[in-house]
Protein backbone atom coordinates (compact mmCIF):
# COMPACT_ATOMS: atom_id res chain seq x y z
CA UNK A 1 0.00 0.00 0.00
CA UNK A 2 1.41 3.42 -0.93
CA UNK A 3 0.27 6.93 -0.03
CA UNK A 4 -1.84 7.33 -3.15
CA UNK A 5 -3.65 4.05 -2.50
CA UNK A 6 -4.23 4.99 1.11
CA UNK A 7 -5.81 8.28 0.05
CA UNK A 8 -7.92 6.49 -2.55
CA UNK A 9 -9.21 3.91 -0.05
CA UNK A 10 -9.76 6.53 2.67
CA UNK A 11 -11.96 8.38 0.21
CA UNK A 12 -13.87 5.17 -0.61
CA UNK A 13 -14.30 4.71 3.15
CA UNK A 14 -15.60 8.28 3.53
CA UNK A 15 -12.81 9.02 5.98
CA UNK A 16 -10.75 12.15 5.95
CA UNK A 17 -7.24 11.62 7.31
CA UNK A 18 -5.05 14.46 8.54
CA UNK A 19 -1.38 14.49 7.45
CA UNK A 20 -0.13 13.02 10.71
CA UNK A 21 -2.81 10.36 10.67
CA UNK A 22 -1.95 9.50 7.08
CA UNK A 23 1.75 9.01 7.86
CA UNK A 24 1.00 6.95 10.96
CA UNK A 25 -1.57 4.70 9.27
CA UNK A 26 0.60 4.20 6.22
CA UNK A 27 3.50 2.99 8.33
CA UNK A 28 1.27 0.73 10.44
CA UNK A 29 -0.76 -0.67 7.55
CA UNK A 30 2.29 -1.33 5.38
CA UNK A 31 3.64 -3.54 8.15
CA UNK A 32 0.30 -5.34 8.42
CA UNK A 33 0.03 -5.94 4.68
CA UNK A 34 3.58 -7.24 4.46
CA UNK A 35 2.64 -9.73 7.17
CA UNK A 36 -0.55 -10.70 5.33
CA UNK A 37 1.46 -11.60 2.21
CA UNK A 38 2.33 -14.84 3.97
CA UNK A 39 -0.94 -16.43 2.85
CA UNK A 40 0.44 -16.35 -0.71
CA UNK A 41 2.76 -19.18 0.26
CA UNK A 42 -0.26 -21.50 0.14
CA UNK A 43 -1.54 -23.10 -3.05
CA UNK A 44 -5.29 -22.54 -2.97
CA UNK A 45 -6.14 -23.06 -6.66
CA UNK A 46 -8.42 -26.01 -5.98
CA UNK A 47 -9.77 -24.77 -2.65
CA UNK A 48 -13.35 -23.51 -2.37
CA UNK A 49 -13.70 -20.33 -0.31
CA UNK A 50 -15.55 -20.43 3.04
CA UNK A 51 -17.92 -17.57 3.82
CA UNK A 52 -20.11 -19.38 6.31
CA UNK A 53 -19.21 -22.16 8.74
CA UNK A 54 -22.66 -23.60 9.50
CA UNK A 55 -24.41 -26.18 7.31
CA UNK A 56 -27.25 -23.72 6.73
CA UNK A 57 -27.69 -22.56 3.14
CA UNK A 58 -30.73 -20.60 2.04
CA UNK A 59 -32.89 -19.87 5.04
CA UNK A 60 -36.55 -19.40 4.21
CA UNK A 61 -39.44 -18.33 6.38
CA UNK A 62 -43.13 -17.71 5.87
CA UNK A 63 -43.88 -14.21 4.62
CA UNK A 64 -45.89 -13.16 7.65
CA UNK A 65 -46.71 -9.56 8.50
CA UNK A 66 -45.51 -8.65 11.99
CA UNK A 67 -45.42 -5.29 13.75
CA UNK A 68 -42.29 -3.25 13.09
CA UNK A 69 -40.77 -0.21 14.84
CA UNK A 70 -43.10 2.71 15.39
CA UNK A 71 -42.22 5.97 13.66
CA UNK A 72 -41.40 7.50 17.01
CA UNK A 73 -38.95 4.72 17.89
CA UNK A 74 -37.39 4.68 14.45
CA UNK A 75 -36.72 8.40 14.70
CA UNK A 76 -35.67 8.52 18.35
CA UNK A 77 -31.94 8.62 17.58
CA UNK A 78 -32.14 10.94 14.57
CA UNK A 79 -29.44 13.65 14.75
CA UNK A 80 -31.89 16.03 13.05
CA UNK A 81 -35.47 15.29 12.10
CA UNK A 82 -38.21 17.13 10.35
CA UNK A 83 -41.70 15.86 11.14
CA UNK A 84 -41.71 12.25 9.93
CA UNK A 85 -38.30 12.32 8.28
CA UNK A 86 -34.55 12.25 8.91
CA UNK A 87 -33.21 15.59 7.78
CA UNK A 88 -29.93 15.86 5.83
CA UNK A 89 -28.22 18.33 3.50
CA UNK A 90 -29.41 18.69 -0.06
CA UNK A 91 -28.53 15.48 -1.94
CA UNK A 92 -29.02 16.59 -5.58
CA UNK A 93 -27.70 19.88 -6.97
Amino acid at each position, binding site marked *: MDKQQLEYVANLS*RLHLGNDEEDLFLEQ*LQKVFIY*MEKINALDTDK*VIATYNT*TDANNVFREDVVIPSLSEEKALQNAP*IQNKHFFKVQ*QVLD
Partner: protein
Amino acid sequence: MHLYEFTALQIKEKIKSGETLAQEVIKELLDRIKVKDPDIGSYLSINENALSKACAIDDKIKSGQTVGALAGIPIAIKDNICTLDLKTTCGSKVLSSFLSPYNAHVVECIEKEDGIIIGKTNLDEFGMGSTTEHSGFKVTRNPWDLQRIPGGSSGGAAASVAADISFLSLGSDTGGSVRQPASFCGVVGLKPTYGRISRYGLVAFASSLDQIGLISKDVADTALLLQVICGYDNRDSTSLQKDVPKYIEQLDSIEKKFKIGVPKEFFANGLNEEISKSVNEALDVFKKNGAEIVEMSLPHTEFGVAAYYIISAAEASSNLARYDGVRYGYRTQNCKNIIDMYERSRSESFGNEVKRRIIMGNYVLSTGYYDAYYLKASKVRTLIKNDFDKAFEKVDYIISPTTPVPAYKVGEKVSDPLEMYLLDTYTIPANLAGIPGISIPCGFTNNGLPIGMQIMGRHYNEQGLLQVARKFESETDFHKIKPKFNAT
Protein backbone atom coordinates in the same frame (compact mmCIF):
# COMPACT_ATOMS: atom_id res chain seq x y z
CA MET B 1 -18.41 -14.07 53.25
CA HIS B 2 -19.91 -11.17 51.30
CA LEU B 3 -22.78 -11.80 48.92
CA TYR B 4 -20.75 -10.61 45.93
CA GLU B 5 -18.22 -13.38 46.54
CA PHE B 6 -20.70 -16.17 45.76
CA THR B 7 -21.12 -17.63 42.30
CA ALA B 8 -24.25 -16.85 40.28
CA LEU B 9 -25.67 -20.31 40.90
CA GLN B 10 -25.09 -20.03 44.66
CA ILE B 11 -26.66 -16.58 44.85
CA LYS B 12 -29.69 -17.75 42.87
CA GLU B 13 -30.22 -20.62 45.32
CA LYS B 14 -29.97 -18.21 48.25
CA ILE B 15 -32.53 -15.88 46.68
CA LYS B 16 -34.91 -18.65 45.66
CA SER B 17 -34.84 -20.27 49.09
CA GLY B 18 -35.55 -16.94 50.77
CA GLU B 19 -32.23 -16.97 52.63
CA THR B 20 -31.23 -13.73 50.89
CA LEU B 21 -33.29 -11.05 49.20
CA ALA B 22 -32.54 -10.14 45.60
CA GLN B 23 -32.58 -6.50 46.67
CA GLU B 24 -29.84 -7.15 49.25
CA VAL B 25 -27.67 -8.62 46.52
CA ILE B 26 -28.26 -5.66 44.21
CA LYS B 27 -27.69 -3.11 46.97
CA GLU B 28 -24.43 -4.72 48.02
CA LEU B 29 -23.25 -5.01 44.44
CA LEU B 30 -24.12 -1.40 43.56
CA ASP B 31 -22.24 -0.20 46.65
CA ARG B 32 -19.26 -2.28 45.69
CA ILE B 33 -19.30 -1.02 42.10
CA LYS B 34 -19.23 2.54 43.45
CA VAL B 35 -16.16 1.78 45.55
CA LYS B 36 -14.24 -0.59 43.28
CA ASP B 37 -15.08 0.28 39.71
CA PRO B 38 -13.31 3.65 39.60
CA ASP B 39 -10.03 1.66 39.78
CA ILE B 40 -11.08 -0.91 37.18
CA GLY B 41 -13.30 1.01 34.76
CA SER B 42 -15.38 -1.94 33.72
CA TYR B 43 -18.78 -0.24 33.48
CA LEU B 44 -19.95 2.38 30.99
CA SER B 45 -23.43 2.63 32.51
CA ILE B 46 -25.32 1.27 35.49
CA ASN B 47 -28.98 0.23 35.44
CA GLU B 48 -30.87 2.59 37.76
CA ASN B 49 -33.87 0.23 37.67
CA ALA B 50 -31.95 -2.79 38.93
CA LEU B 51 -33.14 -2.35 42.50
CA SER B 52 -36.82 -2.08 41.60
CA LYS B 53 -36.49 -5.19 39.42
CA ALA B 54 -34.93 -7.01 42.37
CA CYS B 55 -37.80 -5.92 44.64
CA ALA B 56 -40.29 -7.27 42.09
CA ILE B 57 -38.52 -10.64 42.13
CA ASP B 58 -38.53 -10.66 45.95
CA ASP B 59 -42.29 -10.01 45.87
CA LYS B 60 -42.79 -12.88 43.44
CA ILE B 61 -40.88 -15.25 45.71
CA LYS B 62 -42.67 -14.03 48.83
CA SER B 63 -46.06 -14.60 47.26
CA GLY B 64 -45.11 -18.11 46.19
CA GLN B 65 -44.99 -17.48 42.45
CA THR B 66 -42.53 -19.40 40.30
CA VAL B 67 -39.43 -17.47 39.36
CA GLY B 68 -37.15 -17.87 36.37
CA ALA B 69 -33.87 -19.76 36.04
CA LEU B 70 -31.80 -16.61 36.65
CA ALA B 71 -33.94 -15.24 39.50
CA GLY B 72 -32.26 -12.20 40.94
CA ILE B 73 -28.81 -12.74 39.40
CA PRO B 74 -27.15 -9.45 38.43
CA ILE B 75 -25.72 -9.77 34.91
CA ALA B 76 -23.45 -7.29 33.12
CA ILE B 77 -23.84 -6.81 29.36
CA LYS B 78 -21.10 -5.78 26.95
CA ASP B 79 -22.02 -2.43 25.50
CA ASN B 80 -22.32 -3.68 21.92
CA ILE B 81 -25.44 -5.68 22.86
CA CYS B 82 -28.65 -3.68 22.54
CA THR B 83 -30.69 -2.80 25.61
CA LEU B 84 -33.90 -0.78 25.60
CA ASP B 85 -33.35 0.88 28.96
CA LEU B 86 -29.62 1.62 28.82
CA LYS B 87 -27.51 3.31 26.18
CA THR B 88 -25.66 1.04 23.73
CA THR B 89 -22.46 2.87 22.80
CA CYS B 90 -20.23 0.06 21.45
CA GLY B 91 -17.44 1.94 23.24
CA SER B 92 -17.61 4.48 20.42
CA LYS B 93 -18.09 8.23 20.34
CA VAL B 94 -20.22 7.56 17.26
CA LEU B 95 -22.90 6.06 19.49
CA SER B 96 -22.25 7.97 22.72
CA SER B 97 -25.96 8.78 23.13
CA PHE B 98 -27.52 5.90 21.19
CA LEU B 99 -30.60 4.36 22.78
CA SER B 100 -31.62 1.14 21.04
CA PRO B 101 -35.30 0.89 20.07
CA TYR B 102 -35.26 -2.82 20.95
CA ASN B 103 -33.65 -5.39 23.23
CA ALA B 104 -31.21 -7.97 21.88
CA HIS B 105 -32.47 -11.56 21.85
CA VAL B 106 -30.12 -12.46 24.71
CA VAL B 107 -31.39 -9.57 26.82
CA GLU B 108 -34.99 -10.68 26.27
CA CYS B 109 -34.02 -14.21 27.34
CA ILE B 110 -32.29 -12.98 30.51
CA GLU B 111 -35.19 -10.75 31.55
CA LYS B 112 -37.73 -13.49 30.83
CA GLU B 113 -35.87 -15.70 33.30
CA ASP B 114 -35.74 -12.95 35.96
CA GLY B 115 -32.05 -12.12 35.53
CA ILE B 116 -31.24 -8.48 36.34
CA ILE B 117 -29.21 -6.37 33.93
CA ILE B 118 -26.85 -4.52 36.26
CA GLY B 119 -25.02 -2.40 33.68
CA LYS B 120 -23.16 -2.19 30.39
CA THR B 121 -19.45 -2.94 30.19
CA ASN B 122 -16.54 -1.31 28.41
CA LEU B 123 -14.98 -2.67 25.23
CA ASP B 124 -12.59 -1.81 22.45
CA GLU B 125 -14.60 0.32 20.04
CA PHE B 126 -17.05 -1.95 18.14
CA GLY B 127 -15.06 -4.95 19.43
CA MET B 128 -11.93 -4.00 17.50
CA GLY B 129 -8.93 -4.53 19.75
CA SER B 130 -7.50 -6.97 22.26
CA THR B 131 -6.88 -4.67 25.22
CA THR B 132 -9.96 -2.46 25.89
CA GLU B 133 -7.59 0.51 25.47
CA HIS B 134 -9.32 1.25 22.17
CA SER B 135 -12.57 2.25 23.87
CA GLY B 136 -13.68 5.75 22.94
CA PHE B 137 -14.41 6.46 26.62
CA LYS B 138 -11.91 4.96 29.03
CA VAL B 139 -9.30 2.28 29.63
CA THR B 140 -10.30 -0.78 31.68
CA ARG B 141 -7.70 -2.26 34.00
CA ASN B 142 -6.93 -5.79 35.12
CA PRO B 143 -7.92 -6.54 38.76
CA TRP B 144 -4.84 -8.77 39.09
CA ASP B 145 -2.54 -5.83 38.34
CA LEU B 146 -3.97 -2.39 37.73
CA GLN B 147 -1.00 -1.47 35.51
CA ARG B 148 -2.05 -4.17 33.06
CA ILE B 149 -4.77 -4.53 30.45
CA PRO B 150 -7.69 -6.90 31.12
CA GLY B 151 -7.57 -8.09 27.50
CA GLY B 152 -10.27 -7.36 25.01
CA SER B 153 -12.41 -6.60 23.41
CA SER B 154 -14.74 -7.82 26.22
CA GLY B 155 -12.32 -6.38 28.81
CA GLY B 156 -14.99 -4.73 30.94
CA ALA B 157 -17.00 -7.94 31.02
CA ALA B 158 -14.05 -10.07 32.17
CA ALA B 159 -12.66 -7.52 34.64
CA SER B 160 -16.05 -7.06 36.30
CA VAL B 161 -16.44 -10.80 36.93
CA ALA B 162 -12.85 -11.12 38.19
CA ALA B 163 -13.26 -8.15 40.56
CA ASP B 164 -16.56 -9.53 41.95
CA ILE B 165 -18.47 -6.52 40.67
CA SER B 166 -20.70 -8.68 38.49
CA PHE B 167 -21.84 -12.27 38.85
CA LEU B 168 -22.03 -13.07 35.16
CA SER B 169 -21.24 -11.18 31.97
CA LEU B 170 -22.14 -11.37 28.33
CA GLY B 171 -19.48 -10.50 25.80
CA SER B 172 -18.92 -11.07 22.11
CA ASP B 173 -16.13 -13.05 20.48
CA THR B 174 -15.06 -12.38 16.89
CA GLY B 175 -11.41 -13.49 17.13
CA GLY B 176 -11.04 -14.30 20.83
CA SER B 177 -12.70 -11.31 22.48
CA VAL B 178 -14.32 -13.42 25.21
CA ARG B 179 -11.71 -16.15 25.73
CA GLN B 180 -8.65 -13.87 25.76
CA PRO B 181 -9.89 -11.40 28.42
CA ALA B 182 -11.25 -14.34 30.45
CA SER B 183 -7.77 -15.84 30.35
CA PHE B 184 -6.05 -12.55 31.31
CA CYS B 185 -8.50 -12.01 34.19
CA GLY B 186 -8.53 -15.58 35.55
CA VAL B 187 -12.20 -16.34 34.84
CA VAL B 188 -14.19 -18.66 32.56
CA GLY B 189 -14.99 -17.50 29.01
CA LEU B 190 -17.04 -19.47 26.48
CA LYS B 191 -17.42 -18.78 22.78
CA PRO B 192 -20.14 -21.14 21.61
CA THR B 193 -20.44 -22.53 18.07
CA TYR B 194 -21.15 -19.83 15.47
CA GLY B 195 -24.94 -19.54 15.29
CA ARG B 196 -25.64 -21.17 18.68
CA ILE B 197 -26.80 -17.88 20.22
CA SER B 198 -28.84 -15.41 18.20
CA ARG B 199 -26.94 -12.29 17.17
CA TYR B 200 -30.19 -10.31 16.96
CA GLY B 201 -29.31 -7.06 18.73
CA LEU B 202 -25.54 -7.66 18.78
CA VAL B 203 -24.04 -4.72 16.90
CA ALA B 204 -22.23 -6.23 13.92
CA PHE B 205 -18.44 -6.14 13.58
CA ALA B 206 -17.62 -9.15 11.34
CA SER B 207 -20.85 -11.01 10.74
CA SER B 208 -19.45 -14.40 9.69
CA LEU B 209 -17.26 -14.54 12.82
CA ASP B 210 -19.19 -12.70 15.57
CA GLN B 211 -20.66 -14.81 18.35
CA ILE B 212 -22.06 -13.80 21.71
CA GLY B 213 -20.07 -15.40 24.51
CA LEU B 214 -20.26 -15.79 28.29
CA ILE B 215 -17.90 -14.88 31.12
CA SER B 216 -18.34 -16.31 34.60
CA LYS B 217 -16.67 -17.22 37.88
CA ASP B 218 -16.92 -20.95 37.23
CA VAL B 219 -18.12 -23.46 34.66
CA ALA B 220 -21.49 -24.14 36.30
CA ASP B 221 -22.39 -20.45 36.01
CA THR B 222 -21.63 -20.52 32.29
CA ALA B 223 -23.85 -23.59 31.93
CA LEU B 224 -26.63 -21.80 33.82
CA LEU B 225 -26.63 -18.75 31.54
CA LEU B 226 -25.99 -20.70 28.33
CA GLN B 227 -29.11 -22.74 29.01
CA VAL B 228 -31.15 -19.55 28.96
CA ILE B 229 -29.69 -17.73 25.95
CA CYS B 230 -28.88 -20.64 23.63
CA GLY B 231 -31.19 -21.75 20.84
CA TYR B 232 -32.94 -20.85 17.61
CA ASP B 233 -34.23 -17.35 16.93
CA ASN B 234 -35.80 -16.58 13.55
CA ARG B 235 -34.62 -12.96 13.70
CA ASP B 236 -31.03 -14.12 13.07
CA SER B 237 -30.91 -16.10 9.82
CA THR B 238 -27.62 -17.74 10.84
CA SER B 239 -29.15 -18.98 14.09
CA LEU B 240 -28.99 -22.78 14.30
CA GLN B 241 -32.02 -25.05 14.49
CA LYS B 242 -30.40 -27.55 16.84
CA ASP B 243 -31.59 -29.07 20.09
CA VAL B 244 -30.32 -27.41 23.25
CA PRO B 245 -29.02 -30.00 25.75
CA LYS B 246 -29.60 -29.74 29.49
CA TYR B 247 -26.22 -28.21 30.28
CA ILE B 248 -26.48 -28.00 34.05
CA GLU B 249 -28.06 -31.40 34.64
CA GLN B 250 -25.45 -33.04 32.40
CA LEU B 251 -22.48 -31.09 33.76
CA ASP B 252 -20.98 -34.04 35.61
CA SER B 253 -22.02 -36.77 33.17
CA ILE B 254 -18.71 -36.77 31.35
CA GLU B 255 -17.86 -39.79 29.23
CA LYS B 256 -15.30 -41.98 30.99
CA LYS B 257 -12.87 -42.13 28.11
CA PHE B 258 -12.10 -39.27 25.78
CA LYS B 259 -9.24 -38.21 23.58
CA ILE B 260 -7.54 -34.82 23.84
CA GLY B 261 -5.48 -33.56 20.93
CA VAL B 262 -2.54 -31.26 21.64
CA PRO B 263 -1.60 -29.32 18.49
CA LYS B 264 2.14 -28.74 18.26
CA GLU B 265 1.62 -25.41 16.42
CA PHE B 266 0.08 -23.95 19.60
CA PHE B 267 3.18 -24.75 21.65
CA ALA B 268 5.76 -23.42 19.19
CA ASN B 269 8.11 -20.42 19.40
CA GLY B 270 6.66 -17.35 21.02
CA LEU B 271 4.80 -19.18 23.78
CA ASN B 272 5.67 -17.96 27.26
CA GLU B 273 7.41 -20.74 29.19
CA GLU B 274 5.32 -20.41 32.32
CA ILE B 275 2.13 -20.70 30.26
CA SER B 276 3.50 -23.74 28.45
CA LYS B 277 4.34 -25.38 31.77
CA SER B 278 0.90 -24.67 33.27
CA VAL B 279 -1.00 -26.03 30.29
CA ASN B 280 1.18 -29.14 30.25
CA GLU B 281 0.47 -29.68 33.94
CA ALA B 282 -3.23 -29.27 33.18
CA LEU B 283 -2.93 -31.98 30.54
CA ASP B 284 -1.42 -34.25 33.20
CA VAL B 285 -4.54 -33.70 35.31
CA PHE B 286 -6.68 -35.01 32.45
CA LYS B 287 -4.29 -37.88 31.89
CA LYS B 288 -4.55 -38.94 35.53
CA ASN B 289 -8.30 -38.91 35.11
CA GLY B 290 -8.27 -41.34 32.24
CA ALA B 291 -8.10 -39.07 29.19
CA GLU B 292 -5.89 -40.10 26.32
CA ILE B 293 -3.55 -37.29 25.24
CA VAL B 294 -2.53 -37.30 21.59
CA GLU B 295 0.02 -35.06 19.94
CA MET B 296 -1.31 -33.72 16.67
CA SER B 297 -0.99 -31.00 14.08
CA LEU B 298 -3.22 -28.21 12.77
CA PRO B 299 -0.88 -27.36 9.90
CA HIS B 300 -2.44 -24.10 8.74
CA THR B 301 -2.50 -22.42 12.16
CA GLU B 302 0.26 -19.95 11.25
CA PHE B 303 -1.91 -18.47 8.49
CA GLY B 304 -4.88 -17.83 10.79
CA VAL B 305 -3.99 -14.32 11.92
CA ALA B 306 -3.43 -13.06 8.36
CA ALA B 307 -6.65 -14.64 7.05
CA TYR B 308 -8.64 -13.41 10.03
CA TYR B 309 -7.53 -9.79 9.84
CA ILE B 310 -8.32 -9.70 6.10
CA ILE B 311 -11.77 -11.27 6.46
CA SER B 312 -12.79 -9.44 9.63
CA ALA B 313 -11.62 -6.05 8.30
CA ALA B 314 -13.48 -6.64 5.04
CA GLU B 315 -16.70 -7.46 6.87
CA ALA B 316 -16.18 -4.57 9.30
CA SER B 317 -15.68 -2.02 6.53
CA SER B 318 -19.03 -3.03 5.11
CA ASN B 319 -20.84 -3.22 8.47
CA LEU B 320 -19.54 0.15 9.62
CA ALA B 321 -20.64 1.92 6.45
CA ARG B 322 -23.96 2.42 8.24
CA TYR B 323 -22.45 5.06 10.56
CA ASP B 324 -22.99 8.01 8.26
CA GLY B 325 -24.65 10.44 10.66
CA VAL B 326 -28.04 10.23 8.95
CA ARG B 327 -30.39 8.07 11.03
CA TYR B 328 -28.50 7.73 14.31
CA GLY B 329 -25.10 8.34 15.80
CA TYR B 330 -22.77 11.31 15.72
CA ARG B 331 -23.33 14.03 13.11
CA THR B 332 -20.88 16.88 12.54
CA GLN B 333 -21.99 20.51 12.53
CA ASN B 334 -21.83 23.05 9.71
CA CYS B 335 -20.92 20.84 6.80
CA LYS B 336 -20.70 21.97 3.17
CA ASN B 337 -22.69 19.17 1.54
CA ILE B 338 -23.83 15.66 2.19
CA ILE B 339 -20.53 13.98 1.25
CA ASP B 340 -18.71 16.38 3.56
CA MET B 341 -21.24 15.48 6.25
CA TYR B 342 -20.56 11.73 5.88
CA GLU B 343 -16.81 12.23 5.83
CA ARG B 344 -16.54 14.57 8.75
CA SER B 345 -19.07 12.73 10.90
CA ARG B 346 -17.11 9.51 10.48
CA SER B 347 -13.63 11.05 10.77
CA GLU B 348 -14.47 13.04 13.90
CA SER B 349 -16.05 10.14 15.78
CA PHE B 350 -14.29 6.86 14.92
CA GLY B 351 -11.12 6.01 16.85
CA ASN B 352 -7.83 5.12 15.14
CA GLU B 353 -8.14 1.34 15.38
CA VAL B 354 -11.58 1.42 13.77
CA LYS B 355 -10.36 3.75 11.01
CA ARG B 356 -7.43 1.44 10.31
CA ARG B 357 -9.70 -1.59 10.03
CA ILE B 358 -12.18 0.19 7.75
CA ILE B 359 -9.31 1.23 5.47
CA MET B 360 -7.79 -2.26 5.55
CA GLY B 361 -11.19 -3.76 4.76
CA ASN B 362 -12.01 -1.48 1.87
CA TYR B 363 -8.51 -2.02 0.49
CA VAL B 364 -8.78 -5.82 0.46
CA LEU B 365 -12.21 -5.59 -1.16
CA SER B 366 -11.28 -3.00 -3.79
CA THR B 367 -10.82 -3.74 -7.49
CA GLY B 368 -7.53 -5.48 -8.17
CA TYR B 369 -7.03 -6.60 -4.56
CA TYR B 370 -10.17 -8.65 -3.93
CA ASP B 371 -8.75 -11.89 -5.36
CA ALA B 372 -5.31 -11.45 -3.83
CA TYR B 373 -6.55 -10.71 -0.33
CA TYR B 374 -10.21 -11.34 0.44
CA LEU B 375 -10.80 -14.36 -1.80
CA LYS B 376 -7.43 -15.85 -0.92
CA ALA B 377 -8.08 -15.41 2.82
CA SER B 378 -11.52 -17.01 2.47
CA LYS B 379 -9.84 -20.03 0.87
CA VAL B 380 -7.26 -20.18 3.64
CA ARG B 381 -10.23 -20.18 6.00
CA THR B 382 -11.38 -23.41 4.31
CA LEU B 383 -7.95 -24.98 4.91
CA ILE B 384 -8.08 -24.03 8.59
CA LYS B 385 -11.60 -25.39 8.92
CA ASN B 386 -10.54 -28.61 7.17
CA ASP B 387 -7.65 -29.00 9.65
CA PHE B 388 -10.19 -29.05 12.49
CA ASP B 389 -12.62 -31.37 10.66
CA LYS B 390 -9.82 -33.86 10.14
CA ALA B 391 -8.56 -33.48 13.71
CA PHE B 392 -11.99 -34.13 15.20
CA GLU B 393 -12.19 -37.45 13.36
CA LYS B 394 -9.38 -38.60 15.65
CA VAL B 395 -9.78 -36.63 18.89
CA ASP B 396 -12.76 -35.38 20.91
CA TYR B 397 -11.23 -32.14 22.18
CA ILE B 398 -8.25 -29.95 21.42
CA ILE B 399 -6.41 -28.23 24.25
CA SER B 400 -4.02 -25.30 23.93
CA PRO B 401 -3.01 -22.20 25.83
CA THR B 402 -5.59 -19.40 25.32
CA THR B 403 -2.89 -16.78 24.79
CA PRO B 404 0.87 -16.95 24.12
CA VAL B 405 1.64 -14.36 26.84
CA PRO B 406 -0.02 -13.23 30.08
CA ALA B 407 -1.72 -9.80 30.42
CA TYR B 408 0.66 -7.05 29.30
CA LYS B 409 1.05 -3.47 30.46
CA VAL B 410 -1.36 -0.69 29.54
CA GLY B 411 0.10 1.23 26.58
CA GLU B 412 2.62 -1.48 25.70
CA LYS B 413 1.25 -2.34 22.26
CA VAL B 414 -0.86 0.68 21.38
CA SER B 415 1.50 2.01 18.72
CA ASP B 416 2.05 -1.33 17.01
CA PRO B 417 -1.25 -2.88 15.87
CA LEU B 418 0.46 -5.85 14.17
CA GLU B 419 2.10 -6.88 17.42
CA MET B 420 -1.32 -6.83 19.10
CA TYR B 421 -2.92 -8.82 16.24
CA LEU B 422 -0.25 -11.55 16.43
CA LEU B 423 -1.17 -12.33 20.03
CA ASP B 424 -4.63 -13.51 18.90
CA THR B 425 -3.05 -16.48 17.20
CA TYR B 426 -4.53 -19.21 19.47
CA THR B 427 -8.09 -17.91 19.64
CA ILE B 428 -8.66 -16.90 15.99
CA PRO B 429 -8.76 -20.44 14.48
CA ALA B 430 -11.97 -21.35 16.40
CA ASN B 431 -13.73 -18.31 14.94
CA LEU B 432 -12.55 -19.05 11.40
CA ALA B 433 -13.77 -22.65 11.74
CA GLY B 434 -16.95 -21.71 13.65
CA ILE B 435 -16.26 -24.23 16.43
CA PRO B 436 -16.82 -23.66 20.17
CA GLY B 437 -13.98 -22.84 22.55
CA ILE B 438 -13.76 -22.21 26.27
CA SER B 439 -10.98 -20.65 28.32
CA ILE B 440 -10.61 -21.69 31.95
CA PRO B 441 -8.04 -20.72 34.60
CA CYS B 442 -5.21 -23.25 34.82
CA GLY B 443 -2.44 -21.51 36.75
CA PHE B 444 -0.52 -18.36 37.55
CA THR B 445 2.77 -16.86 36.44
CA ASN B 446 5.48 -16.15 39.01
CA ASN B 447 4.22 -12.56 38.96
CA GLY B 448 0.79 -13.77 40.01
CA LEU B 449 -0.94 -13.22 36.66
CA PRO B 450 -3.62 -15.72 35.63
CA ILE B 451 -3.00 -18.30 32.91
CA GLY B 452 -5.83 -19.64 30.77
CA MET B 453 -6.22 -22.96 28.97
CA GLN B 454 -8.39 -23.22 25.88
CA ILE B 455 -10.51 -26.27 25.16
CA MET B 456 -11.98 -26.51 21.65
CA GLY B 457 -14.54 -29.03 20.48
CA ARG B 458 -16.65 -30.15 17.54
CA HIS B 459 -19.40 -27.90 16.19
CA TYR B 460 -22.38 -27.76 18.62
CA ASN B 461 -20.53 -29.63 21.39
CA GLU B 462 -20.68 -26.92 24.06
CA GLN B 463 -21.92 -29.59 26.43
CA GLY B 464 -18.71 -31.60 26.05
CA LEU B 465 -16.57 -28.50 26.55
CA LEU B 466 -18.42 -27.64 29.75
CA GLN B 467 -18.06 -31.20 31.05
CA VAL B 468 -14.33 -31.34 30.36
CA ALA B 469 -13.82 -27.88 31.87
CA ARG B 470 -15.86 -28.88 34.90
CA LYS B 471 -13.79 -32.02 35.34
CA PHE B 472 -10.65 -29.86 35.48
CA GLU B 473 -12.29 -27.51 37.98
CA SER B 474 -13.25 -30.42 40.22
CA GLU B 475 -9.59 -31.51 40.34
CA THR B 476 -8.06 -28.04 40.85
CA ASP B 477 -8.59 -24.77 42.74
CA PHE B 478 -7.37 -22.13 40.27
CA HIS B 479 -10.90 -20.81 39.68
CA LYS B 480 -11.31 -20.15 43.41
CA ILE B 481 -8.30 -17.87 43.75
CA LYS B 482 -9.22 -14.18 43.70
CA PRO B 483 -7.12 -11.09 43.00
CA LYS B 484 -5.78 -9.24 46.06
CA PHE B 485 -7.60 -6.18 44.75
CA ASN B 486 -10.92 -7.81 45.71
CA ALA B 487 -10.11 -7.89 49.42
CA THR B 488 -8.77 -4.38 49.88
